[in-house]
C-alpha cells in the first residue's frame, strides 16, 4: 500500500487484549497523543485468545506487520496466565515465520499495560519505521534446499 505521494505506507494488524493494551490504545486517544495511521486494532479479551492462524491470515491477505499485545508478565494478566500462553505460542510461531519467507521483524509480541499509552505510541512508531525500511511483504515461496 502507498499513499498519494507514492511513499510506501505499511499496514499493521494489531490484536490487543481488552484489559491492558486495548485500554492503552484508548488512553493514547483520550490523551490526544499522535501516531501514524497505519495500525488496525482488533480487540480480543486476552492475548492468549490470539490464534496463530489469525496472524497468518493477516499476512496472507496483505499485512506488512502484525502486533500481538497483552498484559505484562508475571501478574498483570486479567486471566492469570493468558499472557504466558501467548508468549509460548508466539515465540515458537516467530521461528516458523522465517521458514515461510516472512522476516521475523514483521511480527511483534508486546506487553503494554493500560497506563502505557506512550509505550503503545512508541511501538507503533518503531514498527512503522522498521517496516518502511523492510518494504512491502513479498513472501519468499521458493523452497529452500
Amino acid at each position, binding site marked *: 500500500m502507498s499513499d*498519494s505521494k507514492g511513499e510506501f505506507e505499511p499496514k499493521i494488524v494489531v490484536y490487543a487484549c481488552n484489559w491492558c493494551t486495548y485500554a492503552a490504545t484508548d488512553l*493514547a486517544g*483520550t490523551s490526544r497523543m499522535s501516531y501514524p495511521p497505519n495500525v488496525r486494532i482488533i480487540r480480543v479479551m486476552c492475548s492468549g485468545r*490470539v490464534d496463530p492462524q489469525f496472524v497468518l491470515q493477516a499476512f496472507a491477505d496483505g499485512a506488512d506487520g502484525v502486533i500481538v499485545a497483552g498484559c505484562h508478565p*508475571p501478574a498483570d494478566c*486479567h486471566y*492469570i496466565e493468558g499472557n504466558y500462553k501467548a508468549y509460548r505460542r508466539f515465540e515458537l510461531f516467530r521461528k516458523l515465520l522465517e521458514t515461510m519467507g516472512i522476516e521475523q521483524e514483521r511480527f511483534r509480541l508486546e506487553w503494554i499495560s493500560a497506563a502505557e499509552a506512550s509505550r503503545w505510541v512508541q511501538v507503533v512508531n518503531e514498527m512503522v519505521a522498521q517496516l518502511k525500511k523492510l518494504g512491502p511483504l513479498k513472501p519468499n515461496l521458493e523452497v529452500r534446499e
Partner: protein
Amino acid sequence: MTEEPRIGVYVCHCGFNIAGTVDVKKVAEFAKTLPNVVVAKDYVFMCSEPGQDLIKADIKAHNLNRVVVSACSPSLHEITFRTAVSEAGLNKYLLEMANIREHCSWVHHDKEKATEKAKEIVRMAVAKARHLEPLEELEVKAEPSALVLGGGVAGMRAALELANYGFNVYLVEKAPTIGGKAALIGYIDPKTKGPDVVSKMFDRIKDCPRIQVLTNAELIQLSGFAGNYNAKIRINPRYVNEKCTLCGECEEVCPIEVSNEYNFGLNKRKAIFLPFSNAYPPYYAIDYRVCVKCGECEKVCRFGAINLKEEPKTIELKVGSVIIATGYDPYRPFKGEYGYGLHQNIITLFQLERLLDPESPTKGELIIGGKVPKSIAFIQCVGSRNTTPGAKEYCSRMCCTTAINSAIKIKEKYPDTNVYILYKDIMTYGSDETLYEEAGKKLVQFIKFEDKIPKVSITPEGLFIDVFEYTIQENIRIPVDAIVLSIGMLPPRDIEELIAVTRVSCGGEGFVREAHLKLAPVEAPTKGIFLAGCITGPKNILESIRMGSAAAAKAMSLLSKGKITIEPMIAQVNEEKCSGCAICVGVCPYSAISIKKVNGDRIAYVEKALCMGCGTCNAACPSGAMQHLGFKDIQLLAQTRAVFGGEMNV
C-alpha cells in the same frame, strides 16, 4: 445462520471530536456499500437520547438484525448501545462498536488519512457483525452464605460484616481457638494491642447467631462454583465440650507436656490446655495430635465435660462464596542465624511480645535467662529483605513498628536497661512514624547497618554484637545480655494444601496472588473466592482488618441479589467436532473444562459458571471445536480479512 444479516451502521460525530477530523458523511456513504448493510446514517451525538431513538426506530423500520455503532471505545458506550438495541427488541450481543474516536480522530490529524482509516475500521466492524450471534445470559441461584477460612482478625472481620448483612457464615479455624496471631501479639496504636481488638471481636461473634464457629476444623474439599460451592470440612475431635468451667484440674493431672505454641515456645503446655485466658470458644481443648488417652483428665473432671471417645467427623456445607484468610507463619530462623538456638538469651520478637504480655510465664516481666537484661539489642529484618541467604526479598511490614513499640515499653519499665535497635532501614510508615521519634526521645539507640549484617558472638564473657555502623562508617562491638531477632512473615506452612483444595495460585514470594492488584483486588482468580489478610503477603493488623471488610463487601455484592448472572461470552464446545484430546483442559486457567463421556465418546465439557471468557482454549483447540462466543474464529478472521477488503462468507 438462519437469517440473512440486515445491518444498520450509525456514524457518530461526537460533536467535533470525530467530525472535526473524520469526514463522517463519507464514512456513512461508504458503509452503505458494504455487504448486508441496509441503512447507514450519521448523527451529531449517537449516545444522546435522540441518537439512540434513531437507532431504535431504524431497527423496527428496516427490520435490522445487527447494529454497528461507529463512535467511541466500547469501554465507554458499549453498554449504552447494548441497552438501546435490546430496548428495540434486538438481542444485545448483536451490537458491534467501531472505535473511530480513540483509535482514529483523536490520534490522527490528516483528515484524508483519518477518513480512510475510519472507513476501514467500520468495514472491520461490519465484517464481524455479519457473523454475530444472539447470546443469552444465564442466571444461577446464589446461596446467601459464606465460608470463611481462618479465624484471625481478617477472617473474623469478614465474618462479622457478612453476618451483619444477614448472611450465614461458617468461620473455620484449624486451631482450637479463633483469634489468630493478633490474639497473642501485635501493636495497633500506643493504647491498643492486638489482643484488645481480638477480645472485642470475640464479644461480637459470641452475640451473633449467624456466625457458626468451627474450630479444630479444616477444608478438605471444595467443588462447585460462585454462588454454589460445596465445602467438605473435617472437624478433628476437641474431646472437651461446653460443660467445661475452666477450673483447670484436668491440666494438673495431664502427664503429657509439649512446647507451647501460643507462647512461641517460651514455655510448655499440657496435652489438655487452654490456649489463652480469653480463648474462644471459651473452654479447654485436648491436642488430638499428642494425647495418649490415659483418661486421667476424664476421671478428674467433675462436670462431665470430657469425652475421649469423640471421633473426627466430616461435614458438608453449601455456601455462596469462600473467603480465604489463613494468615501467615512467623519466619523460622535457622540454627545459628544470629546465634539463634545456641543461647537461651537469643529470642525472637514474637517471643518477646509474649514475654511482655501480662499472661506470660514471667507475668509480663522482662526476664530473659533468669534476670532482667541490662542491655538488650533488637536485630531487624531477620528473614526479610535479603539479609541472609534464606531470607525473603520483601519487607514484612510489622516488625519495625512492633520492635520499636516494645523498645519503648522496655525503656519505660526499665529505664536503666540499654536498648539498641540494629536496622537496615526503619519502616515505621504512616502515623507509626511518631513511635520512631518517641523511641529516640526515650534514648533507644538506633544503629544502622547496610549490606554487612551484624555478627553475633557467644563467648564465656557473654554475648557480643559486631556491626559496621553505616552512619559513622566504623566497626563497633556491643556487649549485650539479650538479643531479640525481629523475624518477619512467611506464607503458612500448609499453603500447598490450600492451593490444592481451592485452586488459588501463588505469586513469586509464595503468598496467594490476587486476580489483579489494580483491577480486581481482594479477589482470587476464581469467581466467588476472595482473599483477606496476610495470606496475600505481609500486613499489619489494621490492614488485615480492612482487607477482611473489603473481602466481605465483595462477597456480598456478588451474592446480594440471590442469583448470579453468567456472562454469555464464554467458551462453547461443538460436540460434533470435539475429539476429546483434552488440550483445552490443560490450558484453562480456571479448571472450567473437563472431559465427559457422551454416548461413549470423550467430549470436552465447559462448566459455564467457572469459565471467565479468556478464550485461550479456543486458540489451543486443534479442531476448532472450542469456540469463544463473541470472539469466535470466524468473527475474528472476518475482522482480519476486512482490513484488506476481504470477506468471510456467511
